[in-house]
């Protein structure tokens, strides 16, 4: 694995290789003059030529159809009074009734409010952390220390939510270290795991612990792309470290910050589902129910399939619109946007 370190770095801008049609024409010793003809081959000839490639694509394509697109069509149960024993065909069509019920359900509004509170708090508290951390890491001169700290802060990203919640209960829970510490300092006991009012903060702290380090990757890349000559020129002109940070570094990574901020706004209806579903019952649905857990508990647990699917569908559609508009907005800001990657060039 060490021999090919040069090729281990896929450079962005995926399409820099030799254009395949040109290359295609050259195979089997045909003269290069034939090069431009690749596209004009008959459909059958192209299928025959690419049959191996098409066969290789087939399993993956089948997977996406069966587990992403067919279930997407299954959202039709949002318009049904779905009964499992009747199935899709025989369940009664109720039109928009499920959606009307949704808007009259207090629990839905509660879940929506909780979702927005948590994502809003994460935007305010989580979002700046990877940026500051990346600035700090970037300022470390010693290669070895920086790599070590990077490894340490990346590690929690790979730990699953079940483990993280268990670890947090051990440290913050009723019998954990922090409540005892508070008590020995003469402060009131405080169980961070089960206090409803603290739940959004708890969720945010856990997210920061898990992913703030991992989140630095993109900012570190952006920091490396800042033109080094600017720093040198500024230093020569007498700018100190703070000036350089303010006038070179921050403007240099601002496009990436704005892009990620916009994309975060686009996913404002989504909170880590596994994280919440594990802890919802510690604080009760009043504080711990978010849209995704609402769908799970009302639909799959309580069997209100139609109404819960309606909530899921609305969330999905609004989420899609938000992400697409966020991406559009990012384009307006002159960024490439995340979903343009690899589509075409």
């Amino acid at each position, binding site marked *: 694995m060490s021999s090919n370190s040069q090729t281990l770095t896929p450079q962005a801008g995926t399409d820099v290789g030799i254009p395949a049609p040109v290359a295609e024409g050259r195979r089997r010793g045909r003269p290069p003059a034939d090069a431009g003809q690749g596209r004009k081959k008959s459909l059958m000839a192209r299928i025959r030529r690419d049959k191996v490639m098409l066969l290789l694509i087939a399993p*993956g394509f089948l997977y996406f159809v069966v587990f992403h697109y067919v279930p997407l069509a299954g959202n039709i149960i949002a318009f049904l009074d779905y009964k499992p024993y009747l199935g899709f065909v025989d369940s009664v069509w109720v039109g928009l009734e499920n959606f009307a019920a949704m808007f009259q359900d207090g629990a839905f509004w509660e879940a929506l409010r909780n979702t927005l509170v948590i994502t809003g708090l994460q935007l305010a508290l989580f979002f700046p952390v990877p940026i500051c951390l990346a600035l700090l890491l970037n300022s470390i001169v010693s290669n070895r220390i920086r790599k070590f700290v990077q490894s340490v802060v990346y590690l929690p990203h790979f730990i699953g939510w079940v*483990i993280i919640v268990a670890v947090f209960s051990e440290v913050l829970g009723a019998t954990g270290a922090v409540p005892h510490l508070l008590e020995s300092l003469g402060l009131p006991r405080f169980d961070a795991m089960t206090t409803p009012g603290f739940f959004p903060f708890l969720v945010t702290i856990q997210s920061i612990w898990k992913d703030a380090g991992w989140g630095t990757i993109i900012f570190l890349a952006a920091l490396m792309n800042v033109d080094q000559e600017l720093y040198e020129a500024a230093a020569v002109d007498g700018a100190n470290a703070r000036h350089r940070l303010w006038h070179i570094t921050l403007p240099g990574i601002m496009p990436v910050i704005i892009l990620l901020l916009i994309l975060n706004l686009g996913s404002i209806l989504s909170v880590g589902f596994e994280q919440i579903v594990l802890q919802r019952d510690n604080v009760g649905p009043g504080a711990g129910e978010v849209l995704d857990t609402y769908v799970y508990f009302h639909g799959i647990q309580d069997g209100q399939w139609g109404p819960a699917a309606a909530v899921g569908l609305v969330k999905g559609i609004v989420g899609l619109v938000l992400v697409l508009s966020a991406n559009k907005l990012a384009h307006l800001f002159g960024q490439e946007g995340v979903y343009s990657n690899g589509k075409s060039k």
Partner: protein
Amino acid sequence: MANPSSTLASGLGRLKAKDTRPIWMEKPKPAVQVSKAIALVIICFLALYPLLAVLATSLSSQSEIANNNGLVLFPKEPTFAAYQTIFAGGVVTDALIRSLLITTVGTALSVVVTVAMAYGLTRRDLVGGRFFLMTALFTMLFSPGIIPSFLMVKELGLLDSYAALVLPTLMSAFNLVVVRSFFMNLPQELFEAAKIDGAGDFRILVQMVLPLSRGVLAVVGLFYAVGYWNAFFNAMLYLNDDKWPLSMILRQYVLLGQPMGDSAVAEIAVPSQAIQMAVVVISLIPIVIVFPFLQRYFTKGVLTGAIKG
């Protein structure tokens, strides 16, 4: 990020050359140096302390945990009693074996399917190539929703089968894009030459592309493996408790504190705190073992190229 490939390369060059301070950079004041060092120590402590606390507790006796009010950092008399109890057989051992099997098989399947599709999509004028690519990419934009996904698994007759843990999350479009963009940045002349010599597409993939792609395969494999290892929700939805993987055992007996195993089985009814933490440690071990071998790819920036163009 106008020209990502060249900027990334220069960024990497800088990474290597960075050990010495640039000439123009003044030596920071001692106060700044010290506060930076303190900040780094605190950050590392915050990241590692919870894990160390769990490890220490798992090695402590019940009385020591009680005496220390739950805060054990250095057990005075480390004991492996908790681990002995767990590995004496029973629920946790079975679940551990199941988790290892699911993770291995799942990761292998996922990597094979991802590599195959990614390679297929590298052909530019492939019939329907753009359609196949878009089909995959659009799944990054929407989720079909919990209920339709659940019903799909049910309709396929996968309830209470291990396939329900693997098939619904077989591939991620993100990993597909990572692998595909890596393949497309390999030196294509090599493969052209092989083609002229009469090698078929499949042979080029197996004999030329894959040996050049070990780094990206390791990273994507790690992503899948971590996903399978940590997943508990699908197990909770689809499996009966006799098929539970370790993550579900963790949820049931550690988070919910339910009694472990049948009362008939010779296992402690309510697991002690040390045993609970030992289960956490066991589920952490594979991650902590694998991570050091792969983290260098992250610090090196394997992913930054693919995360966004």
